[in-house]
């Protein structure tokens, strides 16, 4: 009701709206540069920071990019899902379960390709469970995937034997040495296969978003569900595909994490859903769906990784989580203030 009056008021703000929207276009890059800059000039003499003492030193950058593999692998598909107006809170648990299952298979003599294939199938199954709950049983996405978050994590914890914290090598049964080749062994420019796969996934997701019917329908469904239905777009089919993609890439991220750590940690994906959501929101995707950009989610993901890794080096462990929360809070509030006014005009 008030909206009617407010709208006519906003028309008069045309010029500052244009300014605001151009700020919105570039601000996320500024935030990334700023964060990198701050960490680069920080000096603590007594501590060996960032590998060789500089945030932008080659070792430090390689370390940072390797840490970014899971979120880069996952956040593209996650963006598409959020553009369609849906969400998957179970990605972290899906990652953990995949990591545990993958490590368990490797420990028991599976070779790389079969283990990878089975892990990916597991991802598809987890995505399908979410899709079925949300699209066929019509359970609110937040509730449905909160339940599967708990379920997947529960299964991961069950798989790990009593008395152990993770699936790992023991004196009588050693983890094969090659398990971490995928996530650590240099392939190109000092970076491992897992990183380049993540890059390929991101490129594929950018293309899907911009050039394919799937990407377009995701935006249509998130932008106006009623119009999408009346235009003959099958939201059920499209969102099913998106949930499966998210499940698939969560499995892939979990497998990369297991390779990196050479073990299957049932808690390794904890907090991934939050990182993904924040990366997507920082990238300018509206929480309600409709518009968004996979490419900008990549920038959002890098911000999160820089903050995480940067703070890990300069701040005492106890403070890290709170400090990361604070930095991200500022970014999210800024983002909200900028996105809100341009979106409603």
């Amino acid at each position, binding site marked *: 009701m008030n909206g009617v009056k407010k709208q006519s008021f906003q028309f008069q703000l045309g010029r500052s709206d244009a300014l605001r929207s151009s700020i919105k276009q570039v601000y996320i890059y500024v935030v990334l540069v700023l964060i990198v800059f701050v960490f680069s000039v920080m000096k603590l003499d007594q501590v060996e920071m960032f590998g060789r003492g500089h945030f932008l030193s080659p070792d430090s950058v390689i370390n940072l990019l390797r840490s970014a593999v899971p979120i880069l692998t996952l956040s593209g598909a996650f963006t598409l899902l959020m553009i369609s107006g849906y969400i998957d809170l179970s990605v972290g648990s899906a990652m953990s379960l995949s990591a545990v299952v993958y490590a368990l298979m490797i420990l028991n003599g599976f070779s790389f390709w079969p283990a990878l294939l089975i892990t990916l199938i597991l991802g598809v199954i987890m995505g399908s469970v979410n899709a079925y709950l949300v699209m066929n049983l019509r359970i609110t996405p937040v509730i449905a995937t909160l339940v599967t978050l708990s379920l997947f994590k529960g299964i991961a914890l069950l798989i790990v034997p009593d008395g152990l914290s993770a699936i790992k090598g023991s004196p009588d049964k050693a983890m094969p040495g090659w398990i971490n080749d995928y996530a650590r062994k240099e392939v190109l420019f000092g970076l491992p296969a897992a990183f380049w796969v993540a890059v390929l996934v991101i490129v594929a997701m950018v293309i899907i978003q911009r050039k394919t019917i799937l990407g377009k329908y995701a935006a*249509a469904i998130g*932008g106006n569900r009623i119009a999408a239905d*009346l235009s003959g777009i099958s939201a059920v089919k499209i969102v099913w595909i998106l949930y499966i993609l998210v499940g698939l890439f969560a499995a892939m991220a979990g497998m990369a994490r297991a390779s990196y750590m050479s073990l299957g940690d049932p808690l390794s994906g904890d907090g991934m859903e939050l990182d993904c959501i924040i990366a997507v929101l920082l990238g300018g995707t509206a929480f309600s769906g409709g518009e968004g950009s996979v490419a900008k989610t990549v920038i959002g993901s890098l911000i999160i990784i820089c903050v995480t890794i940067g703070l890990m080096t300069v701040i005492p462990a106890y403070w890290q989580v709170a400090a990361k929360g604070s930095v991200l809070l500022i970014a999210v509030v800024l983002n909200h203030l900028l996105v809100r006014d341009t979106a409603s005009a």
Partner: protein
Amino acid sequence: MKPTENVLEIRNLVKDFPGVRAVDDVSFDIKRNTVHCLVGENGAGKSTLIKILTGVYERTSGQILLNGEEHDPQNPRDAKQKGISTLFQELNVVDQLTVEENLSLGVEETTFGFLRRTDKTNQMVSVMNSIEPSIKPGQLVSTLSVAKKQIVEIARAVAAESNIIIMDEPTAAISESEIARLFTIIRSLRENNVTVIYISHRLDEIFEIGDNVTVMRDGGHIATKPVAEIEDRSELIRMMIGKTVFEHYMPRDDISPDLILQVKNLSNHRLNDISFDVKAGEVVGFYGLVGAGKTELARAIFGADHCDGEILFKGEKLRANPEKSIAAGIALVPEERRTQGLFTILTIRGNVPVMNMSKISRSGFINAAKERTVAQEYVEKLNIATNSIEKEAAKLSGGNQQKVVLSKCLFADADLLMLDEPTRGIDVGAKSEIYSLIRQLSNEGKTIIIFSSELPEIMNICDSIHLLYDGSLKSTLRNGLDVDSEYILHVVTGGD
């Protein structure tokens, strides 16, 4: 303060929306303690007028005097405090609360955060009791009938000491006996210092309950006079429709006898056993007032809503699913273009091809060049006023938005095009462009069904006219120079 004779005086009221003047220089008075009826076709400006009175819209110009004083409510709550309550068609009660809780909603008093039963609540309950003793204060509102929920709302308005209660189509969803009960209540309200502004499409009710009536047409004020001075329904109808110009319509005899659509015994919660046939290449119109079931019929044929009965398209049974309907060759331009037809955050380029993506893509990949060509083609073909196909649909005017929705449906290559209120809320120029487009499409062999609450529109372009009232198909006419618009109005307002 001595009460003025007129509780409300409206002077030269104007309300402009982009491209449309919804209320055009309206002036009339509403006498204190009367039942004042407001009638007019859809789009006549009644709702806009009410929304200005209740603070939903801001007027463009003009003056409103309430009890002799300037009335400029900032929002509905403000209007309520000044004594104007409204009973909307969508009732404003909370089903999960009790009658008593509903009555005191928003005016609760508390002690240390705990709800307190006050004199005010008691007084509200006694008002409730005096109006309708059969409603118990402790009853859950969800257990009440629509009519009784209305009474709860009326009691709330009375207890808030409203001296004007606006009722918007209060009888649309209640039974005959409940209507009689409502009228008794309205009469007792009038005796208890309340003025009722009564809006209804059912003209017989105006004669039964109204003291005065104001007729509006196309945003303008036609007449305000005592109901007793009005001869009969047809006088009222004549005032509502004015001189209907339909010289544009030329009877056609070249329509093929082939049936493209056969609808048999279609029923659902809003439709009542509807059967009709449509010939290939015909322009068919469905006319009825708000709530007659036009949109519901369109959605049922399209497969967007569940229904019983049989629909044959080109001799084959339709599957109840918009995706399948589009594939079979049916497209629907929905009633509300912004919320149902358009992807407002997408560009024109993004909107136009969305119903037929396979035509501009290969194995899932969109051919961007083809997409641009298609969008450009439709911008030119339908004369969409824009400097670029990259303009967001949200930023177009209503008429141009409607053309984008039409483009979408045309690109779907449909043989049967259903248009639900194709020209609602758009300016005259765009309207006539859309009419000539419809004729052109019909000449190209497309079949078109128009669902409209604007009679001139139906009479200007349709070959045959179906009349709907209360979910039933009441009458079917062939259009021609001998079609009697008064008869049509008679049928769609519930006459026999």
